[in-house]
């Protein structure tokens, strides 16, 4: 079942893990993969999958800065992602206010 569009919720962001990723990343410019994974409390593969979905939707960018040592992946919300997340939160609040 898809989300009724008149509710205003974003079906990409609405999924629990992706929502928490967006909520977390909305507070910072970017965060490292392991921090996001630890925040979610899930495996690397689950985290990767959720980040990929957000990236494919244009809401998130993934970068792997080069340098010495292990390459780390950093994630940050795009402008579009921040707007989509803010709209989603506004829709949630409207849902509560309308009860």
């Amino acid at each position, binding site marked *: *079942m*898809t*989300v*009724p569009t008149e*509710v205003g*919720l974003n*079906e990409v962001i*609405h*999924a*629990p*893990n*992706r*929502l*928490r*990723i967006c*909520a*977390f990343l*909305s*507070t*910072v*410019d*970017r*965060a*490292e993969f*392991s*921090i996001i994974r630890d*925040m979610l409390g899930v495996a690397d593969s689950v985290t990767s999958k959720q980040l990929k979905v957000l990236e494919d939707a244009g809401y998130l960018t993934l970068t792997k800065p080069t340098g010495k040592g292990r390459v780390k992946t950093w994630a940050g919300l795009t402008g579009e992602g921040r707007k989509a997340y803010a709209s989603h*939160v506004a829709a*949630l*609040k409207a*849902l*509560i206010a*309308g*009860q």
Partner: protein
Amino acid sequence: MENEQNPEAAPTHDAHATLAAIGGARSNAADRLVTPWWYHPILGLLAAVFVVVYATGDIVAVLIVTVLYFGGLGVLMGVYKEKTGMWINGLRAGRASWWTLPLVVIMVACLGVAYYLHAVHGLDWPAWVAGVVIFVAVNFFGHRFDVALRTQLREQP
């Protein structure tokens, strides 16, 4: 259980739970955004040295200190990111950024006044005073920024 690929419409109790989850993620970020104790003193020192040398030094000294200042900032940022796994731009942190703006104003003002007094009146001591003021300001406003940011993050979304 909610299907991640085809989420159902959220009744209000789910919306409450969802907002609570958002609050949890934000609090998690607040818990992790702990600035290392050495961060602001080193940043303050870099800024202070930059202002003193810029106001009183010759062109070679200014060039060297400029490279060292921005290089030092880069290293500081890199170490912060390595240690916390996160990065936040102090000028784009919502209401907490209000604590960053006075710092920018103070730095520009101190640099301007110190440079003027040295260039026009040949005075060096104002540059040293400016350096001390900037060192203190970076540590004061930096700490206030951290506190404001964590408070902001722990507020309900």
